[in-house]
């Protein structure tokens, strides 16, 4: 009954989405206020029903109900419960249900908590959200039903891809989806505002927390995914420019640009049309990403199965929604009044530079990701990988980082060049000193990009805290702290990337138990190799002692795991984290009589990459809380004032 109830909940939610769209459309077009009053409760009910359907699918997985096709093809009764639970979204149908759930719940949240938006725009936004949801309900119900039964039930399931059997699966996809799909709210806001022609500062102030919220979660999701890929794949890299990674990066780039332009619109009432455009682009990138991932059209480790039919379905949805939103934009952009003008030397200009550079990176990543599809249409099989992306994204990202130093030190509306230069003195001097020191120490020994990366990272590090200079720290608004910490996070992350790229030491050997391997100041004693067993796997495990500079040896255990269902071998790297880097050891195959392949990396300061990502998200959270708190305080004071006057 659980599966049937889940399917019923989905159908009901889809009907409510249709109702929500109809109520909003008729109410707004015909000026029927009483119809509009029903939109919010319907949106909340719709969100609730998606959550119910999702909870029911989780229940089916936890109970290992082998009469449900999705459980049979993706789960196994012997799997640890955490992977039964997280395995719910480790497959196509389950992840699409998660997508729809996030969309429904986000819509319900907009219905419940959005108070700043004008009523008509609010209703039009909810109508827009229902319209997008409908397409994905159709996709789920007609092309990817997660609740399909099989008769007779299977004896047991086929298991989950072992690469996914990791705690990372419980955290990374839901966080990523909350951000990725949460951007649909910004999309709906843009559609709503275009319909009611109310694009102004008040609209931007209402949209900002939703954009910030989605962006924070997207940042966390990408950071977590990067670390997961780093330790799980055993390749020692943290970003592979895989199409699916790009699919999450592109919405992030658009959302980051949107985050900055929405601030310009909220503070200075400028960049109106552009901000609306970015809101449309950001979620469009999420949908393009889903198309790339779910159609299996590009070679990727994330592609579960190649299914052209589903690809066509998503492509049609893409065409309808992106095309529709762009058409609406083209139709209504004339009605969006011009925003306030600003001088050339101003914070606004710097944020335009930020938006321009982010958009250029986005465009170049999109071209590189889609290029193989384009050439395949002409009969050439081509792959575009790290060499392309590093070459184009690297220099522009560094330019963006330099703009990041200047922007926060420039005043809104108009500023004087001389003043800006004066405020920039300290970061510039630090950058110059680092440049000279590094040039003296390592010129020609590290690549030009990591070299510049280190210099700019330190300059940004100093520059990012410069806005706090001579301020009363306790009276500095929380959202200013948020900006400072997020920018500092960028510097920290960049420093980690540059260090990893410039200073990593790699060693590849075949060794016998009893041998000692030395690399990068570490001594590794290979003691023995033993078979061990886990819940649903067996493994060969190497026992090794790692020590540095005559210090206390630490035991580490790289493994090669074998899973029977489905039959797959995975490597479990041993990681040893120190304050100044990570030791990363992978056990390979038996090379010949008694010798085992070992791949050892010493990666100085590599952990800064993810620590920086965390700081960026933390900065976003501080900004969100700071803005919201200021809103509450202002309202509270206004009420007090009214009471006092009365």
């Amino acid at each position, binding site marked *: 009954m659980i599966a049937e109830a889940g399917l019923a909940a989905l159908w009901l939610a889809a009907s409510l989405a249709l109702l929500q769209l109809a109520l909003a459309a008729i109410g707004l077009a015909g000026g029927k206020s009483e119809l509009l009053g029903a939109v919010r409760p319907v949106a909340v009910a719709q969100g609730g029903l998606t959550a119910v359907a999702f909870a029911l699918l989780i229940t089916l997985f936890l109970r290992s109900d082998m009469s449900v096709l999705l459980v049979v093809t993706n789960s196994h009764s012997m799997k640890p419960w955490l992977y039964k639970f997280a395995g719910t979204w480790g497959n196509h149908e389950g992840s699409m249900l998660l997508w729809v759930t996030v969309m429904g719940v986000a819509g319900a949240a907009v219905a419940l908590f959005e108070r700043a938006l004008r009523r008509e725009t609010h209703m039009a936004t909810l109508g827009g959200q229902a319209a997008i949801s409908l397409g994905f309900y159709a996709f789920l119900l007609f092309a990817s039903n997660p609740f399909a039964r099989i008769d007779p039930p299977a004896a047991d399931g086929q298991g989950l891809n072992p690469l996914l059997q990791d705690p990372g699966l419980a955290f990374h996809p839901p966080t990523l989806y909350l951000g990725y799909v949460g951007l649909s709210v910004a999309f709906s806001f843009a559609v709503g505002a275009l319909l009611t022609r109310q694009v102004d500062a008040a609209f931007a102030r209402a949209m900002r927390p939703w954009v910030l919220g989605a962006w924070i979660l997207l940042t966390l999701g990408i950071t977590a995914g990067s670390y997961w890929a780093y330790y799980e794949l055993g390749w020692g890299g943290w970003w592979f420019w895989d199409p699916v990674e790009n699919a999450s990066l592109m919405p992030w780039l658009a959302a980051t640009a949107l985050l900055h332009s929405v601030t310009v619109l909220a503070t200075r009432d400028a960049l109106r049309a552009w901000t609306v455009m970015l809101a449309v682009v950001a979620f469009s990138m999420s949908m393009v990403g889903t198309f790339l991932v779910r159609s299996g059209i590009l070679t990727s480790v994330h592609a579960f199965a190649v299914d052209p039919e589903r690809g066509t379905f998503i492509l049609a949805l893409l065409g309808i929604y992106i095309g529709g939103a762009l058409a609406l934009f083209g139709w209504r952009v004339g009605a969006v009044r011009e925003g306030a003008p600003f001088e050339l030397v101003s914070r606004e200009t710097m944020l335009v530079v930020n938006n321009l550079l982010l958009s*250029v990176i986005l465009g170049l990543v999109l071209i*590189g990701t889609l290029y193989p599809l384009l050439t395949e249409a002409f009969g050439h099989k081509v*792959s575009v990988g790290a060499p392309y992306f590093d070459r184009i994204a690297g220099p522009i990202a560094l330019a963006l980082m330099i703009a990041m130093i200047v922007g926060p030190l420039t005043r809104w509306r108009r500023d004087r060049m001389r003043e800006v230069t004066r405020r920039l003195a300290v970061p510039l001097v630090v950058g110059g000193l680092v440049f000279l020191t590094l040039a003296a120490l390592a010129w020609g020994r590290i690549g030009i990009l990591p070299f510049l990366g280190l210099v700019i990272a330190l300059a940004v590090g100093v520059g990012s805290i410069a806005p706090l200079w001579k301020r009363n720290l306790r009276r500095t608004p929380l959202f200013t702290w948020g900006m400072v910490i997020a920018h500092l996070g960028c510097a920290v992350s960049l420093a980690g990337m540059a260090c990893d790229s410039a200073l990593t030491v790699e060693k*590849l050997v075949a060794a016998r138990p009893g041998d000692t391997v030395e690399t990068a100041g570490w001594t590794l004693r290979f003691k023995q190799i033993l078979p061990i067993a886990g819940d649903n796997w067996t493994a060969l495990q190497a026992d090794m002692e790692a020590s540095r500079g005559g210090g206390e040896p630490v035991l580490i255990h790289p493994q090669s795991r074998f899973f029977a269902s489905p039959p797959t071998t995975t490597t479990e790297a041993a990681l040893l984290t120190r304050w100044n880097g990570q030791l990363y050891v992978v056990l390979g195959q038996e090379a010949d009589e008694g010798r085992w392949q070992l791949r050892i990396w010493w990666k100085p300061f590599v952990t800064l990459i993810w620590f920086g990502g965390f700081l960026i998200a933390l900065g976003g959270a501080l900004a969100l809380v700071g803005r919201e708190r200021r809103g509450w305080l202002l309202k509270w004071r206004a009420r007090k004032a009214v009471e006092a006057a009365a």
Partner: protein
Amino acid sequence: MKAKHQRLILALVALVALIGAGLLAASALKDEAAYFYAPHDVKTKGVEPGKAIRLGGMVVKGSLKRASDGVTVHFDVTDGKATVPASFKGITPDLFREGSGVVAEGAFDVGGTFQATNLLAKHDERYMPRELEGMQYDEKSHKMKVDR
């Protein structure tokens, strides 16, 4: 500055950035995009040494040899029409074995051996590099069948 002028300047800057980005992408793609070659393509079209490509085919049975350092492998890649030698230093994927499909990323050295920097083998039962779709190894005749 008048608002009209400002819009014009912004639009111009955006246009220049767009064209610049397009040119940058075109030049980078020309240099960095790795074309897919089957051994037969290598023999007929020729690939200059050092040019990054993807080489795809089947690992010839009996050709897989491990060097004395224990971490380098030498093998031959075939598509049924031609065969080229390849070598790789590193830990090979678990499903990389004789008679199975492989996509190798790397470049030819001057001696004509393909120096792979990365090997992509069949990921699991359900996943296969797209480049290998349509290539099949016939167990009986030990020949590759390619329908493209």
